[in-house]
């Protein structure tokens, strides 16, 4: 009797210790994930003094100031006063928003029908069957950007697409197309064929059935593909740095350019970094479900 209760309490103690270890590791990793974000946001309201002394907590350690945001022309005092820096930042922001919404939308428009066709119909063009066509699309994923970089730079120069929004949008569409097709294929494959067969018996064409019946059913999955594409486009730096100068440059290229010129003026670098990561942090918090869905549906069954 005594022995078994002793045994039981030891087991309980073991379970408690295990709990503590699990939550300890989880909290430690949460801290590792969130501290850099906290650091960046708070640094954007630091003064030079707070930076050099390594103060960490606003209102407690130091009095926040709009220093960093003023340098960007985005502090409450000067947000409505036109300034060169404000125009630059706003133009980059607009570009980023346009690129990272239009390109994914275009990729869905091109990719969703392609994925649908590949799951539902049999194609035979010369030696190329469905599997070859799918492979053709998805294999674009392994193409490193450097391979296309130089030929595209020269090509864009001759097409007058250098430093234009259209040029970058086309390129970003190409970049996210494999992922869109991959995810969309999985979505369509999970729907039973009977749906369209019934519609086609009622006189729908294949396009009619696709648009009226299949698309509404797969909207959540396509939304996941769209959001994942938005993340990729918003964060893209390589091509933006190479193919754009003043008109079409996006936020990451601006952040990189400022990194070298701002030196220790951390408050303004922090402000600009905050600006470039904040939208996606909100996307991450509120649309986590879709991101997880997009990543797992594409990767785990494909």
């Amino acid at each position: 009797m005594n022995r078994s209760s002793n045994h039981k309490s030891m087991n309980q103690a073991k379970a408690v210790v295990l709990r503590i270890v699990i939550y300890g590791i989880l909290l430690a990793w949460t801290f590792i994930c969130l501290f850099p974000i906290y650091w960046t946001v708070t640094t954007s309201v630091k003064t030079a003094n707070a930076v050099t002394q390594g103060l960490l907590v606003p209102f407690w350690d130091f009095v926040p100031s709009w220093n960093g945001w003023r340098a960007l022309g985005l502090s409450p005092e000067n947000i409505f006063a036109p300034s060169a820096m404000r125009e630059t930042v706003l133009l980059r922001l607009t570009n980023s928003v346009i690129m990272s919404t239009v390109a994914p939308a275009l990729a869905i428009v091109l990719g969703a029908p392609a994925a649908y066709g590949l799951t539902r119909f049999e194609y035979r063009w010369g030696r190329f069957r469905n599997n070859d066509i799918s492979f053709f699309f998805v294999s674009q994923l392994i193409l490193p950007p450097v391979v296309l970089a130089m030929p595209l730079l020269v090509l864009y120069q001759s097409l007058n697409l250098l430093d234009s929004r259209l040029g970058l949008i086309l390129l970003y569409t190409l970049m996210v197309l494999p992922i869109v097709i991959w995810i969309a294929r999985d979505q369509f494959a999970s729907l039973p064929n009977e749906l369209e067969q019934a519609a086609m018996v009622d006189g729908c064409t294949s396009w009619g059935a696709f648009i009226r019946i299949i698309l509404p059913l797969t909207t959540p999955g396509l939304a996941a593909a769209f959001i994942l594409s938005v993340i990729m486009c918003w964060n893209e730096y390589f091509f933006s740095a190479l193919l754009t100068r003043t008109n079409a440059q996006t936020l990451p290229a601006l952040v990189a350019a400022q990194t070298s010129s701002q030196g220790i003026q951390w408050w303004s670098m922090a402000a600009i970094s905050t600006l470039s990561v904040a939208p996606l942090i909100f996307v991450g918090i509120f649309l986590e479900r879709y991101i997880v869905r997009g990543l797992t549906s594409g990767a785990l069954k494909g």
Partner: protein
Amino acid sequence: MTAESVTSHMIVRRPARTRSRRQSAGRLLLATATILFGLLVVAQLLNAFGILSIGFSGWPAVYLGYTAWSVVLCLSQVLIRGEEGARALFVLPAILFVVGMVIFPTAFGLVISFTDWNLASTNGWRFNGLDNIREMLSDTFFWGALGNMCYYVAGVLVQYLIAFGLALLLNAEIRARKFFRVAFLLPFMLSPVAVSWMLGKSMMEYRFGPMAALARTLGWEDPAFFVHPMLARVFIAALDAWMWIPFMVILLLAGLQAISKELLDAAKVDGATGWQCLTQITFPLMLPVSFTTIFLRIIFQLKLADIVLTLTAGGPGGATDTVSSFIFREYRDRSNVGYGTLLAQVYLIMIVIFLTLMLKLSKRYIRHTV
């Protein structure tokens, strides 16, 4: 597919005669467009090699021609083949788009990789045979960068171990799972360029960065993170891990959630310890998911460039350079178009061989163990 059989009898409904007239109209349209486009390309090529001077300056005409030809091709498919053509229309635009954006530039790249083209030189460009290949073979920085890629790819395995551990914890019976999941996901959302400032340039800054302060408290007197070659490589890999572990956690967690609880419960009833459950059941069942995760991650890792470019620019002495960042700087700093493009093409071939081998070997391995 079975949808095929249902729709194929619907085409028959249309009267045969209009169909044939439509067909011939479609054929005519396609033939005309193809001939016109072909003429345009020939004129442009002749112009490019200086034989004729009727072409337009640059290549816009060819690209406009290609776009127009693509539209006609899609249209004529519907005209010629009816419902069958309408089905081709699902895939055709995407294919034409990718061909236009990838195949032409790649072919073009193959040509310029055998030239001495330098954007800074005023002499234009000429073919220089195998000079670029010879230069590549003796370019220690390129081979150094390739060597660095081995470290970075090996880093993926370390990331995998950490991510697997975290996924196991998230899969345990815990409270506030949603909170942890979102918090763990966030680093994946951030732009690599911003991260390289947030962590690399400010938190790890020698004088005022909190990481440097932490390192000093832990007894590292001189926390210069990016000065010693090996350490610089390790810290770049660490930054990269910080951004990419969330991606692996998500995939592995989804894999773990798909494992049936009954199996593990049954094993527990039979007296298996937690560790035995993990190594004998969970881990083998996770092999396919693990492999997909690592494979995808390596594909992305082979493109690694952003944080290296913005944080160390390849330094110190090329110790952190990735192949991508090295080629990028070859373009940007030395305007060496021909040589850089050759390196990129060679790199692509290496990637394809490496990934194919990996796919083959791991398939065999999984088949043998599962």
